[in-house]
């Protein structure tokens, strides 16, 4: 049965008609056009679809859209301010942490959830925060460097 729900994405409230079986990932990408959130494994194994809900990094492929109602959803599209990249995005760029870019949005959001809570994490803490984000291009080294650099800059 279709339902009208309100989704607050990056501070903008969208009224959408959804069926309960739709995942947040599907609604973000297909209904609302937030295609920056990537579908890779679609079963909770890879972190590419990571978004932040109420301050926490979660997997949008395993979240029902109806259950995200009334919560603050942050996606990659909400990170930059106008043309100015968020410091984490800028660090990913400067440190060479992006290659094919498919895992990047999920990683940036995992990093944001971490740094919002713990602005100066140890390398081990960064590793734990992004342990569920698979990347095949980079070997992760520059991603770790970027997140650490973004953390230092924020301080």
């Amino acid at each position: 049965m279709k339902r009208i729900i309100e989704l607050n994405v990056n501070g903008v409230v969208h009224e959408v008609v959804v069926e309960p079986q739709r995942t947040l990932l599907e609604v973000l990408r297909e209904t609302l056009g937030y295609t920056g959130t990537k579908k890779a494994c679609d079963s909770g194994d890879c972190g590419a679809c990571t978004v932040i809900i109420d301050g926490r990094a979660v997997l949008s492929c395993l979240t029902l859209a109806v259950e995200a109602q009334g919560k603050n959803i942050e996606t990659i599209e909400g990170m930059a301010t106008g043309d100015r990249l968020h410091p984490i995005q800028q660090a990913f760029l400067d440190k060479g942490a992006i290659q094919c870019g498919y895992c990047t949005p999920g990683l940036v959001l995992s990093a944001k959830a971490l740094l919002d809570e713990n602005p100066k994490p140890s390398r081990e803490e960064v590793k734990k925060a992004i342990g569920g984000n698979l990347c095949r291009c980079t070997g992760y080294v520059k991603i770790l460097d970027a997140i650490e650099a973004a953390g230092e800059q924020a301080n």
Partner: protein
Amino acid sequence: MPQYSVLGQRLPRVDGPVKATGKANYADDLVLPGMLYAKLKRSPHAHAKILSIDTSEAERLPGVRGIVVGADFGKFRYGLRPDTRDEYPMALDKARFVGEEVAAVAAIDEDIAQEAVELIKVEYEVLPAVTDPEAALREGAPQIHADKPGNISIHMHTEFGDVDAAFKDADYVREDRFYSQSVLHGFMEPNSLVASWEPPNRITVWASKQSPYFLYRNLANCFDVPLSNVRVVQPYIGGGYGGKNGSYALDFAAVMLSKKTGRPVKLTLTQEEVLTAQRRRHPMIVWLKTGVKKDGTLLACECRIIADGGAGTAIGPTTIANAFYFMNLPYVVPNVRFDGKRVYTNRPVSVAQRGNGIQQIRYAADVQIDMIAEDLGIDPVEIRRRNSAYTGYTTPNGMKVTSCGLQESIDEALKAVDWEKEFRSWPEKAEEPTGRIAKGVGIACNSFCSGVRLRGHNCCSAVIKVHEDGTVSLMTGSTDSGQGSETVLAMIVAEVLGTRIEDVVVPQTDSTVTPVDPGSFGSRVSSTAGNAVRIAAEDARRQLVAVAAELLEAKPEDIELRDRKVFVKGAPDKSMRFRDLARLTVAHGAGTTVIGSGSWGQEIDPVDFEKGIGNLAGSYTFGTQAAWVEVDTETGKVNVTRMVVAHDCGFALNPLAVEGQHEGSIGGGVGHTIYEHCVEDDGQTLSSNFTSYAMPTVGDMPEMISYSIETLDPVGAFGAKESGEGTQVSTIPAIVNAIHNAIGVWMTDLPITPEKVLKALDEQKAKDRVLSEVR
């Protein structure tokens, strides 16, 4: 070192902002008006005759707009060469592996397409299947292709020098068997495309292809349309590593569905479909026999390989040839004999993956050289130095080494790891207690082809358009699947034209607009496309300089372009802005729109794949890698803690990008060595998701340091050679050698799971016990 203003800088990638903000569009992000969604019906059997396909019920399902089956494509088959065309767009008479595509449905949404797929009834006669390449070679084995007796997809047998005499002369001969397992490319973005057929005979596809031009040709042939009517547009590519080179069933199916329905069709695979039924690396059994002198000088190698090709040949001939080509490099081996069989099995098709065929042979050879060194009591560094290739060396079959920094790479790697202090050979440490966590260090060297010479279309081309505000467009058919080639090619343009990288735009490949290119494989882009871009930029520069000379009343040879300005040598008062020059070129006199163009290909003869004669590539890279491992001797778990790479890339056009390539190669290599393998039962893949197919996570990666050795190769663009694949080649043997250094066992069966390590340790203990009893 030459002084450049743009090249050699650690510049962030040009597509970084669009990727960091989620604005980069990948194929599945695209939506066209009226677009349909397609799903594939796949064979549940590894080998089965298709008796009938009943689509009637599926057709009646509301929302279904079109269904295609193999018969819709007639008898069209495709493949790399006329004699290897063994793949149909979709299964025709029989299915040859679990997951082979049998039918496809386009519907108004994904759910309906999936429901319809399940309503299609396929009647099969199940045939005996063979999923092991050695079994497939036995007499009486099920025959997978009627016209390929004995299940031989490719057989290459060749020999250079006098191998038998050399073995007779050898002081020491050793023979070992190595196995490299079935691993996957592991790209995060599942294969995807949007296809649109425009009557009467135009095709447009937005497809996730690292090499769009295979598809461009295959679609033209399959649908019988002129090449100029096949428009392959490249969206951003979410990783390829060799797994998005070719044309696949989904591509043909989507185009045919669009043709049938008159609507654009999107077909995106699920990751499960990718992991169970798409392409894979060739599993390979390698028997390697090597003869040496007492001092470790290599005299002869004899190699026999059996490669599991899966159900089709695809680019298989190159895989087998590559294994032969890299039997010796990075070393000098005067006498070589090779027998390589690529065998059909009822498994998904094996193709190139980062290191195509070279990985498997170099893993064997660079572990065996450590074995030999230990047997003869020679230092592993010493034996490598002694046999090192060198600038000017030509291999017995004709591969010409135009630059070689192998010795320097050994120096650099050893320095970085403090080898003298850190390394003691296993025999020296064997009697000491290791403690629970045994530590080891190992090295390995590699060589790789930089800019493979292709037998068909070989050259790369570029077109440069200067806009009147001084910005520049670079049109090239070389694609960037994440490796950063767009950035590097833009840097070349900025360098030659004296502008900045932010002034150069590299639109993505569009086969009706951008020059035709062979594709991004064989480590070709920087070296080969780089030269084409250089020539095109020089062409544009010449045109600009001619106008500048007139405007500034100077001789063309005195005009200098630097940092968005135009100078006259020796006349500091005469200068203008580059953008003004660009504006004036179209306005001055009759006006000239500056369009530079260039093509470049390796000026070498095509190789003879039958016998392996000839020069495979424009140049060759060399590198050395050192690995540290810790082995838990109670659980068998191997932890690679640190890795050093020193790689002769000729010239690092962008060191940030070069490092990224090494780190990615190490990532893939660590996965291949320790973590990954396809788990199968009767041809059905059980490791169907990223929980069960264990690609390394961040916590499984070593710390990494990489160094570039710059030998300024005379062939590659600005002296550059590849950096994208060579490092993955030596990652495996470096780790295997380090494990041996830690615990004294040789791991010759990949992946090196904890259980295998414990088993090897048990066997070693049992052997030691027997030996001590004998004593």
